[in-house]
């Protein structure tokens, strides 16, 4: 034995990368083989378009996780969800990832799923919905791709540009992921602990989750996120911590936990997600927000100075003909601005305007809110990308007059939680 043969390289390292070139070639080939086999398997899309309605009961028992029994029902209920195919969105994202500046802002401003405000309690709250506490903070999209991570606020502007442990979220020594590996997370950035709370998962490793039920997305979110190290404390290649929010079935226990439970973050209301709903960009009635004074510091809207004004204020978009509309699709017309005010304040179509509600003029006709005359206050903050939604205006109105209370939510829950026969009846009526 000649031990010095083993020791010699200490001072005389031989720089020879031939073996490294071989190894790198092998890694590349293995990756590409797996990619092309997965293409053949259509792994990316087929998971999400299994014909679930054709699965008999026996099979459901075997495979409870994958089979989304509510899928067909939810599609029938909400036909508009069928319109957007995953491939279209997928291409959109790949193209959008190359966008820069205002074009990127514009595109990303339209990608978040926006909750409606809970005006009344949806049916089957306990059976079809999840509830969780909403962390106070800035709602944003977090996108990891090409070795970096970018968070964008609701208006599309960049909040942070940083390295993270999300897949392809930093340039680290590990085998760099191919460019099609990217993730999109729906988050709230919570200032006090500098943490991104992930409230929804939209794409993971390039696989679109747009057309998956919330149930599946939450399952995926909870099983995937922590595996990446994204939930670890910040480090060189991971500037911000990510965290998940506990999500509860919306039964009395879950609802109480979300409402009264203590969390590491400051709470700002409760979010309700329909478990069968897909991720839909824009406003959706299948994801709701509800607040009261106990679970949020921000129940009533503030004005531009941060004070709660004496009269309710709304932000609406001005149209060519002077009509004032909400951000809904299709929009709701809440009134009309006189031509002389438009000219005097040199307003243009597309401007977002702040207006005061005159309580005496407000009426509720057939459950629909009509604001009547509105008093022009001024232009809204320039950063605004959206007008208020109808549900927000309505919620703010009721919050000032006859708020929907926690007891109302509890009272709406089905006391016979486990009685399946009744549930089935209800489904058939739907």
């Amino acid at each position, binding site marked *: 034995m000649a*031990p010095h043969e083993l020791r010699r390289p200490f001072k005389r390292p031989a720089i020879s990368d031939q073996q490294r070139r071989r190894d790198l070639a092998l890694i590349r*080939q293995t990756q590409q083989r797996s990619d092309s*086999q997965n293409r053949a*398997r259509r792994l990316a899309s*087929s998971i999400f378009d*299994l014909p679930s309605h054709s699965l008999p009961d026996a099979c459901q028992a*075997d495979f409870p996780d994958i089979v989304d029994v509510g899928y067909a029902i939810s599609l029938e209920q909400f036909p508009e969800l069928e319109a957007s195919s995953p491939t279209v969105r997928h291409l959109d994202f790949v193209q959008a990832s190359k966008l820069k500046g205002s074009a990127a802002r514009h595109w990303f401003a339209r990608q978040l799923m926006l909750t409606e405000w809970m005006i009344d309690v949806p049916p089957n709250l306990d059976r079809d919905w999840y509830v969780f506490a909403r962390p106070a903070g800035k709602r944003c999209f977090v996108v990891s791709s090409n070795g970096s991570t970018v968070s964008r606020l609701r208006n599309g502007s960049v909040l942070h540009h940083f390295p993270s442990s999300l897949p392809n979220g930093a340039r680290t020594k590990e085998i760099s992921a191919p460019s099609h590996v990217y993730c999109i997370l729906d988050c709230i950035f919570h200032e006090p602990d500098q943490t991104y709370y992930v409230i929804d998962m939209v794409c993971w490793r390039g696989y679109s989750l747009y057309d998956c039920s919330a149930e599946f997305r939450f399952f995926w979110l909870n099983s*995937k996120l922590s595996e990446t190290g994204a939930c670890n404390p910040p480090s060189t290649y991971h500037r911000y911590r990510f965290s998940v929010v506990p999500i509860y079935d919306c039964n009395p226990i879950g609802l109480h936990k979300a409402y009264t439970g203590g969390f590491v973050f400051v709470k700002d209301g409760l979010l309700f997600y329909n478990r069968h709903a897909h991720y839909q960009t824009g406003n959706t009635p299948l994801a709701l927000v509800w607040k009261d004074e106990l679970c949020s510091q921000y129940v009533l809207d503030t004005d531009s100075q941060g004070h709660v004004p004496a009269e309710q204020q709304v932000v609406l978009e001005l149209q060519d003909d002077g009509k004032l509309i909400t951000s809904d699709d299709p929009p709701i017309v809440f009134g009309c601005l006189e031509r002389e005010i438009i000219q005097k304040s040199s307003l243009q179509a597309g401007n977002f305007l702040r207006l005061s509600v005159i309580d005496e003029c407000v009426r509720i006709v057939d459950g629909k809110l009509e604001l009547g005359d509105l008093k022009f206050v001024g232009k809204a903050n320039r950063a605004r990308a959206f007008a208020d939604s109808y549900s927000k205006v309505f919620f703010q109105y009721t919050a000032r007059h006859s708020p929907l209370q926690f007891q109302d939510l509890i009272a709406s829950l089905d006391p016979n939680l486990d009685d399946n026969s009744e549930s089935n009846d209800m489904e058939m009526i739907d």
Partner: protein
Amino acid sequence: MSLQITQLLLSAQSADGRVRSAAEENLKQFQEQNLPHFLLSLSVELADDLKPPESRRLAGIILKNSLDAKDALRKADLTQQWVNVDASLKVQIKESLLLTLRSPVSEASQTASQVIAKVASIEIPRREWQDLIGRLLTNMTQPDTPATLRQATLETLGYVCEEISPQDLEQQEVNAVLTAVVQGMSGVQESYKVRLAAVRSLYNALDFAQTNFENEMERNYIMKIVCETAVSKESEIRQAAFECLVSIASMYYEILGPYMEALFSLTANAVKGDEESVALQAVEFWSSICDMEIQIQDEYDGDDVRSSDGYHNFIQRALSMLVPMLLETLLKQEEDQDQDDSIWNLSMAGGTCLGLVAKTVCDEILPLVMPFVEGNITKPDWRSREAATFAFGSILEGPSIEQLLPMVHAGLDFLLNAMNDQNSQVKDTTAWTLGRIFEILHSSNCEYQVVTPANLQRIVSVLLEGIRDAPNVAEKVCGAIYFLAQGYEDAESDSSILTPYLGQIISALLWTTDRTDVSNSKLRSSAYETLNEIVRCSQIPETTNMIAQLLSEIMNRLGRNVELQILTSEEKEKQSDLQALLCGVLQVIIQKLCTSDDTKLIFLQAADQLMALFLRVFACQSSTVHEEAMLAIGAFAYATGHEFVKYMPEFYKYLEMGLQNYEEYQVCSISVGVVGDICRAVDDKILPYCDGIMSNLLKNLSNAMLHRSVKAPLFSCFGDIALAIGENFEKYVPYVMPMLQGAAELCANLDDNDEEMLEYGNQLRRGIFEAYSGILQGFKTSKAELMMPFANHLLQFTEAVFRETNRDDAVTKAAVAVIGDLADTLGPSIKLLLKNANFHVHFLGECFSSEDDQLKETALWTQGMIGRVLAS
């Protein structure tokens, strides 16, 4: 006959070529006609003291080569050949060999002892030469045995222990061997040669002494004798005893506690005052202890290792005395030691050991070493300056970055100045130390920066000056540049502060590759490899132009190289070595350019020319293909995609040549990988070449001479081809499926206790699954029914693999995917099969609880596919 063979053996060593080859031919005929008698004649020749030593020597060598070979397959053949020899003849041969041990001609007895060990390596594991150990021991116990026989016997025991493994001997035999050996070492009346033979045998027998080392009394005795032997008056014996101690340090680390004090003073004395050959072993003893403690720390992986039973903290406990001892050795440099790579001396061993000590105790080394560094680094004597620098460079790995950074910050400027030292050895070590600093402490994403925009310019200019220094210094500078660049590999921004200097650095490296004042090729290859790292770590697009220029420069160089008129074989070898380096750079450049669509255009514009060059490189050799060129072709095919089809007519013959080169299995393996790359690049356009490729792949699979590491990739390659050509794979099914089934059976019969076999088994399983996956997916749209007859076998094999405890993650992934492929392709027709083989439920359950994302995704897909079939 005996006269005749003596003459043949002598003639076979004749200076006259004709006589020699005639004799060799005759010997070969004899061997082929009657091997058993040939072997017997040789052993008789070897035993006969009346024969000339020259014929006896060659007889012994031929005997040895008839029993053992380096190549595993050849060795297996030879073993079988010996086993088949008639038993009575074997007895005669062995008696002759044992008789030869008694020969006063030491060359004959030494040869015989080696041949005996070779026979023993075949027979003892088969329990066939049961009395060998006993008979050898008799030589040692009989009072009147001559010293020469005692020496030959001890040597034989040592060789036998080296050849066989501990489980081949009974404990009683081990005890007797150890007793004989230890007596041989300690006997006062024994001759020098007997004692040397004894201590060398002990070295080989240590592995057998497990039980004896567990017994305190026996252990104390063995250690006492070894320590006594380590201070014998003959240095060769002392060296051999220290070699035993080195071996004991790693084999019996856990029992060393009570002996450490004695061992410390023993080694310290040797390091201070003994001859270098002995001192080197004494240092090696401590290096081995470091190896052990580092290994145990790794196993604990962050847990508190110091509180564990198995960790004795020897290094930390000896630290305050050990480090000064090692620092002393650093001052014992030889003049010009850095210019000769074969030199290994005390100062090098000491620095190496110091580096290991730093890795073992981390921060604690610093206060012991830094005063030495500071005290010596400015001394007028070059030895002091070199030793101080070497000490500093050695301890950079281990201590925390927080502790090291202030010191490196304080010392960096000094080191940069020291690159102008008047002594070349100081410069060599300084450049090496700079390289270590960059390797260990420099990363652009680190919170604390060693290299800053403020000092980078100076660093680069010092390095670029240093690269023009003596070749050994230049080589270390290449290393420093290599690691300087590597620090920017993970840069987060699209721009690197190194970029403005890359032009100068690349020119300096190219200049270095052209240096003519260099005796060996090491500097040139270091410079090219450093160039590769520069390319890998550069930021595209800001370096695009530079890389494009480099591409054309390297292509020009390769163009000139293939034009050379080659005469001698030495020139041919040089040409081929340079081709390897240039193709390596091209491969790295191709991969870099293809990371973005814009830069890929540069590659595509050069593609035709590049291919022409690669073809010229291939044409330079008639019998084999150039490995690095083949490796570059893989990257090239991936980068060109469908366009690669147009190169196939010309390239194909070289691909075939690569596939047929089973002797250079790396070449074969890379060629198999390239087939996969081409399949993915051109899809079914590979069809016209498939008959040729497939027949070569199939031939390789049945070729017992091909290194087994290529077998699994061959299976994966079937999958690549099937996926590319789809239904056209049908005609290969009758050939491929039996191969897959045979390999599946082989997997079940591999030896579980052999690490290498376990690994091989896993590679094979993965290859088989990848083949099935490719074929199933390839047939999915039009020929699914072809796979129906194999579904059951595949499910059974998958189940067997599922139950296999040693399967690795890659196998699991491939196995779970193949079930999905089966369900996806065959659909409702395998509903019943899937229902009956419900192991998949458990298998998927296991996958879902894994931490591997991709595995879970694949499992989810498979679950969906099975669900669809079961629901049909």
